């Protein structure tokens, strides 16, 4: 998961576009010919898309882009033991 990638997606794609992209990636991941390293990349791409979706929601709720990005990363770090 990379903050610059999340920012890029959030700035350039609507929430609907991101949701569609996630659905496509999830569908690709179910193909029988997918290799393990390809699955790693798909998982990472979906994480970035999910992050962009959450930042979209926070910005829509009134946060600045910077605060939303920082808030999202705080949420990520709060989900795991460090």
């Amino acid at each position: 998961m990379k903050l610059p990638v999340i920012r890029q997606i959030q700035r350039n794609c609507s929430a609907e576009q991101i949701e569609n992209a996630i659905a496509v990636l999830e569908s690709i991941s179910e193909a029988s010919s997918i290799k393990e390293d390809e699955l790693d990349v798909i998982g990472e791409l979906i994480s970035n898309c999910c992050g962009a979706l959450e930042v979209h929601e926070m910005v829509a709720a009134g946060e600045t882009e910077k605060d939303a990005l920082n808030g999202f990363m705080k949420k990520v770090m709060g989900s795991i033991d460090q």
Partner: protein
Amino acid sequence: MLIELEQDNLEAIVAQHPKVVVQYSAGWCGNCRLMKPKFKRLSGEHESTVFVIADAEKFPLSRKLAAVNNLPTFAGFNNGTLVNQVQTNKEDQLKNLINEVTGN
């Protein structure tokens, strides 16, 4: 049986059931999303084992039953004791963990 945690009570579930496999997830986690349908499917193949999906962000107490420093983390419990855990997006590794718990 498959349970999606609605409160921070994994410890009670682990205490109540002899064989438990947990997927710690989060909504933002791509690999968690990829593994969830596989986890659900595998739960249907092991009727004597309780499969639990736990949101690691919402339920920090439940997270403390394993070392969740990456997601998804899968943890297997036998008679209340942590048998093993694995952080993976590979179904085969999840199956190995399940086999450790079920004794297959």
